[in-house]
């Protein structure tokens, strides 16, 4: 409420408290009512109405004005504030006292009414708030139930698909460990093992994508030394692609990052496998890491392959985007690898992008992660 409006609210009732007795007096004078003391109850009515409608202050002002006006116009000697008859003084004093009492009672009633109205309003607001809370609680319950069902679904799918895959993979790799397998069968069993690993990868990618999109990726962030993480990933790539060399360039001054070791490993594995598929035979993959500002470290995975055309860079991290891969091995994938990279980097507080592998031709996939603040982590304590 503005001060102007507030002032008007105060002054208007006061004005009425002064003008109403004056108007009544004018009326009585105009009607030439000589014995106006008989009509004193009319003033009392004004005081009572003001007490009810405006409050005690306005009632007292009206009573005082009435007292003075009656005394001046109707009490002998008229047109003075003197009293010829002491009875008039007593009568007016009684009037004033009665007016004050009526005004007080009226204002109290008004205050009580206001309190009741306020309480009713507060009750109404509380009911609205309760209804809103109940709705929010219902929505939270629905979301929790959805979340629970999603997790349960993932756990069930995970169990139902991975257990038979485990049977196939453990069985085939056990056979492959033996020396007695004939060569023709060995090739078949190797194929079975390879395919079950690929199937497992597809299932894992689908489950991870579901977790990312559902916002239920579980992380255990800790300080991670990028030299160790990249070396571990390069070692995993070496097991499946022994001829590919990986050159790691991480200056000693590079800070550690806050990341989940396994999820960071997954990001690096995906990018290194991509680079391995894209790079020509014999060309090394470069992995660099360097401080990218005050609070982030940027990792780049650079290959000497054909690179990523500028027109595709906006879509390459979209799920199921395969970009017309010529390599049939890659085309067999679902196009989830890079979208999982993006999801896992973003959920860890970083971002991912693609750039030119300047000065040489090729692709450079880069991602940032928050640098671990010295002394910030209590997790290792």
């Amino acid at each position, binding site marked *: 409420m503005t001060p102007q409006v507030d002032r008007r609210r105060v002054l208007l009732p006061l004005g009425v408290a002064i003008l109403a007795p004056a108007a009544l007096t004018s009326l009585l004078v105009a009607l030439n009512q000589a014995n106006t003391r008989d009509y004193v109850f009319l003033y009392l009515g004004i005081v009572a109405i003001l007490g009810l409608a405006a409050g005690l202050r306005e009632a007292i002002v009206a009573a005082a004005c009435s007292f003075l006006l009656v005394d001046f116009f109707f009490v002998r000697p008229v047109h003075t504030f003197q009293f010829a008859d002491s009875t008039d003084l007593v009568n007016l004093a009684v009037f004033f006292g009665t007016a004050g009492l009526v005004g007080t009672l009226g204002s109290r009633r008004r205050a009580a009414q206001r309190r009741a109205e306020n309480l009713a309003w507060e009750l109404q607001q509380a009911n609205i708030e309760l209804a809103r809370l109940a709705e929010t609680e219902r929505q939270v319950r629905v979301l929790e139930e959805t979340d629970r069902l999603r997790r349960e679904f993932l756990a069930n799918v995970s169990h139902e698909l991975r257990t038979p895959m*485990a*049977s196939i993979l*453990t*069985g085939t790799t*056990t056979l492959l460990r033996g020396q007695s397998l004939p060569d023709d069968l060995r090739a078949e069993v190797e194929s079975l093992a390879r395919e079950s*690993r690929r199937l497992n990868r597809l299932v894992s990618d689908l489950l991870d994508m579901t977790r990312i999109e559902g916002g239920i990726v579980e992380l255990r962030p800790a300080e991670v*030394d990028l030299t160790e993480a990249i070396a571990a990933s390069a070692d995993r790539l070496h097991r499946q692609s022994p001829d590919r060399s990986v050159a790691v360039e991480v200056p000693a001054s590079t800070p550690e990052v806050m990341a989940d070791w396994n999820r960071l490993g997954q990001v690096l594995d995906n990018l290194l496998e991509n680079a391995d598929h894209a790079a020509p035979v014999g060309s090394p993959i470069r992995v660099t890491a360097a401080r990218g500002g005050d609070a982030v470290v940027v990792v780049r995975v650079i290959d000497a392959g054909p690179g990523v055309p500028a027109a595709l860079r906006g879509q390459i991290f979209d799920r199921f985007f395969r970009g017309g891969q010529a390599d049939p091995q890659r085309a067999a994938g679902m196009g989830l690898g890079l979208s999982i990279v993006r999801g896992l980097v973003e959920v860890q507080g970083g971002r991912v992008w693609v750039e030119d592998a300047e000065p040489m031709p090729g692709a450079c996939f880069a991602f940032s992660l928050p640098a671990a603040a010295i002394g910030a*982590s209590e997790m290792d304590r």
Partner: protein
Amino acid sequence: MSDAERILLVEDDTGLRQAILGALEAGGYAADAVNDGIQAAQRLRADDFELVLLDLGLPFVDGWEILAQLEGRPLPSVIIISARGEEGDKVRALDMGADDYLTKPFGADELLARVRAVLRRVNAASTSPEVVRCGDVVVDVGARAVSRGGREVRLTPTEWALLALLAEHAGTSLDHRTLLGRVWGPEYVGDRNYLRTFIQRLRRKLEANPSNPVVIQTAGQHGYRFGPMPERAH
């Protein structure tokens, strides 16, 4: 490998049970298998095993309950084999006393490598005759025994391997990489969650106030140390 090493496989899926038994036999281990939690509890009460391969989703009594029953017992060591790959499950299992967690599916080589690593910790014999003290905690490295306030503290093989390594270098800081590589193996050197979980487990057993550790202290950003740093001679 010693003849005494016995492995119990607890897995309800028939195909996978047969495949894992085949892998263990091909790896030269003698393994028994049961297919539910009730049988597992009975076998674990009746027989001594060095290692249990424990599935979590079992009929009747699930793997978590079996793990809880084994909590605090130095043997058998436990490797969880589960289709659930969530980090929370892994940490919970390690926190409850599991020595390792293998997510399905896995190849025979990976399985046998994990089994070897855990059994290596079970059978690790120290050449150090050293007895190391810190307050009321006494670590007899040669005898593979640890006591606190004169009472024996029972540790799992992995807990013992970690404590023994720290105690053998009492007063010296060992970094995460060294501890993970020496206790778990080179493929774990960056997985600090393993180390953190086992350090917490040891602190719960050895420290009067685990949140203000005296026996196993955090050394800077990158390591842990058994006992206080030796005072410098002036």
